[in-house]
């Protein structure tokens, strides 16, 4: 009796869950509302756990890694000096380049408006390579806009809220970017291979003049998803499967995707 009652209850639970999930799938608006509500509910718990765990973590990390931190600080000071020097040089070069691209009527990322944002959260799962950033619709950030950081393209905005946005990184399995190299005569598609596996390009024609170290940039084809010239990745290895008519290319992202703290959202939409 008790068993049949608990079984009936179990089936009721199962059916309810299935129904709720089905409804949520079919109504994207409800999902969005539910996400916001759930975020509000979980935030105090995350905040409390963080408040307890973070100081302990910092204490432990500080005790263990102090010499590394000092060494890293010195290295950063040196790099900052170099960057300042380069920035001064780049200023003049960029102005020249902008004048030239304006004359040729080619869009250039240097001339596009950007919104700086801070990375607030990493993807909570290893099955999706995404980050949440601190700027959203209220700052002009819209779905589809490219995001750059650390010297290259890091991804695309996939969803926005008034005060935040989610960026799908180029290493995500659902990401693909049209790229070119050299004189821009050959176009390839770079695909994400998952959080830990970097990037790759398959079905690359044998006649393609790729070499390890070649820089690939967005091709900016008409109707494409990115403006031209954004550095995406460098070639690391080129492999040819025996009997295959195309290369498989392994790539290293130009931007260090593991240490992204601040990003720039390029206020550029594919239709523009």
């Amino acid at each position, binding site marked *: 009796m008790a068993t049949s009652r608990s079984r009936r209850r179990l089936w009721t639970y199962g059916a309810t869950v299935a129904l709720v999930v089905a409804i949520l799938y079919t109504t994207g608006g409800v999902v969005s509302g539910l996400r916001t509500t759930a975020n509000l509910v979980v935030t105090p718990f*995350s905040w409390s756990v963080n408040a307890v765990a973070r100081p302990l973590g910092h204490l432990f990390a500080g005790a263990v890694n102090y010499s590394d931190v000092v060494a890293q600080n010195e290295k950063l000071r040196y790099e900052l000096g170099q960057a300042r020097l380069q920035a001064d040089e780049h200023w003049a070069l960029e102005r020249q380049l902008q004048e030239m691209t304006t004359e040729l009527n080619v869009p250039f990322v240097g001339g596009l408006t950007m919104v700086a944002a801070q990375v607030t959260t990493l993807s909570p799962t290893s099955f999706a390579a995404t980050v949440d950033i601190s700027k959203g619709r209220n700052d002009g950030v819209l779905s589809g806009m490219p995001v750059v950081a650390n010297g290259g393209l890091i991804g695309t905005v996939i969803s926005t809220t008034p005060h935040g946005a989610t960026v799908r990184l180029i290493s995500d399995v659902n990401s693909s970017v049209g790229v070119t190299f050299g004189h821009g005569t050959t176009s390839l598609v770079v695909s994400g291979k998952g959080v830990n596996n970097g990037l790759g390009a398959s079905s690359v024609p044998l006649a393609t003049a790729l070499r390890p170290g070649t820089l690939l940039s967005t091709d900016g084809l008409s109707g494409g998803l990115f403006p031209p010239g954004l550095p995406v990745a460098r070639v690391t290895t080129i492999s040819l499967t025996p009997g295959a008519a195309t290369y498989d290319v392994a790539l290293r992202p130009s931007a260090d995707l593991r240490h992204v703290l601040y990003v720039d959202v390029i206020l550029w939409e594919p239709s523009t």
Partner: protein
Amino acid sequence: MSRALVPLTVVSLIIVGTQLAIFTSLRVAGVVIMLVWLWPLVIGLAGYTALGIAAGVVAGLFFDTHASTPFGLSVLVGVTLAYGASRLGREGIGDLDSAAWWVTPLLCALGGFVAPVLFVAFGLLTLNDGLWRGSLLAAMVVNAVAFLVLARPMARVAQSVGRLGERSRR
């Protein structure tokens, strides 16, 4: 059961909070340890079927609202693990008090090994066939080891929450 739902929900939310605040950035070989899957699993192993399913739903639902993977996948994984584990738990297999000390960690390790596969398989149901291209094997191994280590302390918490429901029944 109904009296245990309140502490169960609170503990589930703390676990989701811990998952998001600590385990998201504490990656092993790039893999996130999924505490939100271990939680319903240990409740199931303690023999509480309905509570395990409820834990899977609550933890999975709140976790899924923070992830960009298809909504509801973590719920399905949690519920499946809880149901499967509760079949063993009801027989006394995997229960901390009645089974050998190593049985619970071993079953949890097995659950941790299988859970990412379930996630990918349920992903296929939502026509998302890209999930397996990530770090599936790494996720299986890392979660198995993490579940092995965390099984006993988590099972103690699960037992305490489950007993609250039993006390209310008496």
